[in-house]
């Protein structure tokens, strides 16, 4: 084990809170009670004015920064951005990261035991939306004594949550940072999600979502879903740069084993996903993405949907992101300035595709840090 770098938050322990009050969901369903798992870094100040909520993306979790044990090979998923001296400087901010409901990393989800039946929820777990997550996170904020977030930030699906926070709780969000997101999915986005879901749903080991009872899981479906996802997270350019037509063994084998480097990459991504991620959660998360559309309630008028927003916003997009292209971020920017709200927009030159939001790209780090410095300077407002 290498020593933990000094700019890391270090060893962290997730916390867990139980909410015994029923949560009414957008689907019409109700979660009678639920648990949320979260991590915090830094210290909440006496006025509780330095709290920042980090929202995670499709396959993310509450483990944003630091290490769970000295033997951890890898830190949290946003280690580049969260820690002492980083964009979300934990010497200044109290950073909170919450695992979304329906996830498989500790918050109540399909693999949790349904108290009504005594067995795993499986397909009985209600569908959750971005709005439901925000409502559940608001209760977490209450319990943590945070009336108003200095900022709510997130990338991809996490960026959508940040936007939803600003719409649903305008008085509880001073700033939002929305990274590599979109105001809604396109037909193409939904199509990719549907192929991923079909891979899972048609896997014989899916058992209508009851695979837990059969001591198995739809590995094939989940692997294909993850491979497909990874193709859309990378750009054509970065795939050419990383893999090209490179051959794993230096020659063609004339069989169906791995020949090209890119195949090896996808298989590796798929293998590391299975066993770590729950197939029912994958279905739920992709549906939450598909359903996200704040303007759906305002006849497609996004500016009208964002009319309640009071927060100042930084929107960041990446040039090579075709999953949530810069033009989609610009729709959010336009709707915000149509409402005369304070908004800035940066388009970062990056070849990494959608995954860029997870990377340490100097220009991205600089803009994000500059904005968070302003957030900290003006945090009483």
């Amino acid at each position: 084990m290498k020593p933990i770098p000094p700019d890391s938050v270090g060893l962290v322990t997730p916390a867990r809170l139980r909410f015994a009050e029923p949560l009414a969901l957008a689907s019409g369903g109700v979660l009678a009670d639920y648990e949320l798992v979260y991590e915090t870094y830094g210290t909440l100040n006496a006025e509780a004015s330095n709290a920042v909520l980090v929202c995670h993306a499709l396959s993310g979790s509450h483990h944003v920064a630091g290490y769970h044990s000295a033997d951890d090979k890898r830190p949290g998923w946003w280690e580049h951005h969260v820690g002492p001296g980083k964009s979300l400087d934990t010497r200044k901010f109290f950073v909170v990261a919450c695992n979304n409901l329906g996830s498989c990393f500790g918050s109540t989800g399909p693999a949790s035991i349904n108290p009504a039946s005594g067995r795993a929820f499986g397909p009985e777990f209600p569908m959750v939306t971005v709005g439901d997550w925000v409502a559940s996170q608001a209760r977490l904020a209450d319990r943590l004594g945070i009336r108003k977030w200095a900022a709510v930030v997130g990338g991809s699906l996490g960026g959508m949550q940040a936007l939803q926070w600003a719409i649903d709780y305008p008085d509880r969000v001073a700033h939002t940072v929305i990274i590599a997101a979109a105001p809604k999915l396109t037909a193409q986005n939904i199509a990719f999600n549907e192929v991923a879901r079909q891979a899972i749903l048609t896997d014989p080991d899916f058992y209508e979502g009851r695979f837990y009872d059969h001591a198995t899981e739809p590995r094939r479906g989940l692997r294909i879903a993850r491979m497909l996802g990874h193709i859309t997270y990378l750009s054509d350019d970065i795939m050419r740069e990383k893999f090209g037509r490179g051959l794993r063994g230096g020659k063609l084998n004339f069989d169906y084993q791995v020949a090209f480097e890119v195949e090896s990459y996808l298989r590796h991504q798929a293998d590391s996903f299975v066993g770590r991620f729950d197939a029912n959660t994958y279905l739920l998360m992709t549906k939450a993405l598909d359903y996200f559309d704040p303007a759906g309630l305002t006849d497609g008028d996004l500016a009208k949907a964002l009319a309640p927003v009071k927060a100042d916003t930084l929107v960041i997009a990446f040039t090579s992101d075709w999953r949530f292209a810069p033009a989609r971020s610009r729709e959010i920017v336009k709707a915000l300035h149509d409402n005369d709200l304070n908004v800035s927009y940066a388009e970062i030159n990056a070849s990494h595709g959608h995954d860029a939001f997870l990377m340490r790209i100097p220009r991205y780090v600089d803009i994000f840090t500059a904005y968070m410095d302003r957030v900290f300077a003006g945090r009483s407002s």
Partner: protein
Amino acid sequence: MIPARIDFRIIGDWIQPGSRVLDLGCGDGSLLAYLAESKGASGYGLEIDETHVEECVRRGVNVIQTDLDAGLSEFDERSFDYVVLSLTLQAVRYPDRLLREMLRVGTEGIVTFPNFGHWRTRWQLGVLGRMPVSTALPHEWYNTPNIHLCTLRDFARLCEREQIEVLESQVVDHAHRQRLAQRLLPNLFGEIALYRFRRARLS
């Protein structure tokens, strides 16, 4: 605080307090910051350069990273009181189109540009036979971003052709000072021109 540049002060004097301003090619955001502080103005800057974008974010100026040559289609009609184009007109691909766009999204437009009719420019081109290089136009012909240079007279003619009514104009030198000669013969002695204009009312 550093005393404001005279072009900033002229623009500040031109705009009404509490105005909504769109600054095209806003650079490091210093004009918008000045107008916010001195006039209570609000609005957005558009800027293509990422270093400038970061400077704007750092100083708390709303900035949208974009290419002006792509137009202002994101902005609705009459969404600003003023649209400002400061020392950028000469660097855009279609100055005439951009002027029309400015008066679509704003009630009034304010433009500043380096005057190609300045005597030193004329001397370098007319007598020395070389493309002019000056403090206001520091680039060589082969590396200049300034692809659409004009004189005060040229600009006035374009305004006429585009049915743009000039409301006010001034000239300053490259250090943003004003001298008597500039007032008397602006197209010869003015290095930087400032115009405030609106769409001409059809009579």
